[in-house]
């Protein structure tokens, strides 16, 4: 009967009940939306990083990764690389390993010069493994006679106003430190949704890179790719067993900076969400207090009939819980289709990132939301708990009111 009264009380002032539930509704909507966005942000950025650049595991010479930011060409692989690629192909025939030379260079179209990341690759193999969209030109390495092909990230090409067939000069330092340069023809423009690729990278055939950098047949790293992320463990243990002299870096370590940045973002957003929940809590508490004041005589009558304080607390609390369930249900029902849609279609942040490469490096341009059942359940329960907590004060206040005082209204 207590439940029945609490339930029907919701319909005594439908507008007020809806407004009260509305506070929970908004809070739960924001919780689900931001939760799915943040998780999706991390997942999309990591996924695009794996898919377009780092693969599941990178293998390089000892100490290469610790000095990677210095773009040193001192730690290279030659014989070990050949052995690695051969035995990997035998051990994991369905997975792929790409040799690569990564170096710092300046690229110029004759008018403007900018610093880029040069990557020497085997184009036919590399562009099959790393799925990048070709926006212009061709992914085939067969350039016109005498011209060395080059592929460029879409955002970088846009900055240059470049089109396939344009000529560019790449200037770099050889592994011995002397300056070197060559002219390339823009064979294709690629887009990976990864700012490192789109804003900063140019790709050229591995042999041309090795010639440019005076590296003979050496490479700086091998990038290993597979269908599922879990497989990186198998790759890593195999590499550790068979090539213990090489350093390894898996996708989890590669994505650590992204996750650390995201942790900070999550904390900031949690503080904001905490504020929103507090506002919702005080709003609900205020409305419930008003509702109880209006029913003061009724409460007095119930106490006169002998309803215990705990019974009265239950009555008011159940009403709060029901409002919480209503609001949280509405929040879920409205937020869930939105985040499911954004899980498929995502939000393209690419246009917001134009001209700000440094800020863009830590995120994918297309963010796909990542809703989970746990996120929905947590948001729903938070809504219900907030509404219940907000009801505690009015419940406690009216439970201790003297029946006679309450009967007087």
């Amino acid at each position, binding site marked *: *009967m*207590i439940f*029945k*009264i609490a339930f*029907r*009380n919701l*319909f*005594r002032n439908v507008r007020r009940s809806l407004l009260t539930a509305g506070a929970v509704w908004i809070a739960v909507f924001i919780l689900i939306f931001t939760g799915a966005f943040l998780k999706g942000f991390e997942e999309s950025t990591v996924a695009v990083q794996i898919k377009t650049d780092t693969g599941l595991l990178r293998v390089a010479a000892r100490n290469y990764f610790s000095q990677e930011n210095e773009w040193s060409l001192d730690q290279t692989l030659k014989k070990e690389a050949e052995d690695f690629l051969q035995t990997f192909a035998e051990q994991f025939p369905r997975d792929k390993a790409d040799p690569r030379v990564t170096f710092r260079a300046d690229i110029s179209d004759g008018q403007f010069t900018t610093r880029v990341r040069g990557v020497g690759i085997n184009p036919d193999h590399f562009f099959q493994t790393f799925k990048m969209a070709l926006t212009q030109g061709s992914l085939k390495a067969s350039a016109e006679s005498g011209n060395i092909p080059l592929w460029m990230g879409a955002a970088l090409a846009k900055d240059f106003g470049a089109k396939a067939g344009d000529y560019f000069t790449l200037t770099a330092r050889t592994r011995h430190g002397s300056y070197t340069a060559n002219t390339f023809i823009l064979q294709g423009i690629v887009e990976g949704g990864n700012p490192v690729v789109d804003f900063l990278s140019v790709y050229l055939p591995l042999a041309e890179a090795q010639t440019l950098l005076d590296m003979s047949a050496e490479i700086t790293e091998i990038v290993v790719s597979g269908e599922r992320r879990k497989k990186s463990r198998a790759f890593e243990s195999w590499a550790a067993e068979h090539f213990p002299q090489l350093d390894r870096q898996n996708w989890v370590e590669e994505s650590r900076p992204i996750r650390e940045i995201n942790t900070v973002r999550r904390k900031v957003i949690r503080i904001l969400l905490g504020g929103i929940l507090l506002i919702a809590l005080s709003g609900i508490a205020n409305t419930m207090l008003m509702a109880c004041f209006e029913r003061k*005589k*009724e409460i*007095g*009558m*119930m*106490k*006169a*009939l*002998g*309803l*215990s304080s705990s*019974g009265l607390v239950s009555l008011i609390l159940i009403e709060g819980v029901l409002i919480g369930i209503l609001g949280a249900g509405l929040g879920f029902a409205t937020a869930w289709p939105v985040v499911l849609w954004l899980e498929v279609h995502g939000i393209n942040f690419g246009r917001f990132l134009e001209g700000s490469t440094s800020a863009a490096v830590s995120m994918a341009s297309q963010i796909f939301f990542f809703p989970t059942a746990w996120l929905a359940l947590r948001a729903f329960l938070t809504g219900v708990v907030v509404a219940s907590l907000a009801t505690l004060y009015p419940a406690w206040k009216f439970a201790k009111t003297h*029946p*006679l005082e309450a*009967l007087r209204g």
Partner: protein
Amino acid sequence: MLLQCQNVVKTYQQGTQEVRALRGVSLNLAEGEFAAVVGPSGSGKSTLLNLLGCLDIPTSGDILFETRAITRLSDNQRSILRNEKIGFIFQNFQLIPVLSAFENVEFALQIQGRFSAAERREQTQSIIKEVGLEDARRRRPSELSGGQQQRVAIARALVKKPRLVLADEPTANLDSKTAEDIVALMLRLNTEHQTTFLFSTHDNRVMRYARRILTLKDGQIEEDHGV
């Protein structure tokens, strides 16, 4: 003796002023009585009923309910006493608007927590029939007339078979014909159930149904006579 009131004084603080609502009231109420408390506004009728109903405690003096001194009971004990032994009928009916007539009556039994759902329904059905509300039992208070609402309140007070029913101006919001019907109903139930009734009124037509009339004036019993 069901109730014994010994030299009860009740004072209120109203701002800086002390108001003496009752000034040494003594009375005894026996099992099965049908008594009215009458007197002008401010004479202390409601205060007396509140004290006898364990809703309040006297400033001095003693009230014994079945030999138990209510002044020595805790809030919780008084709440249990009200729950088990006392029925209330209020001037404004004080029904729960979101419950039907039947549910309002059943709620009183639910608070007691002593009966199964089937027993509650059976007892509620029985008292609803006694007060003549069978046809209106599914209606909510807003769909009932004043007289019907007061019948529901009477049924609610009686369904838990209390020893004492206190009614504060039960007919004040009713027209004279309905008021007489309500008091006649109370009298019938008093006779049939042997439940003690004490009600306050200032309506002469209602007063004549009472078998005992206590006249209060300025917080004191001026007259106490059987009819």
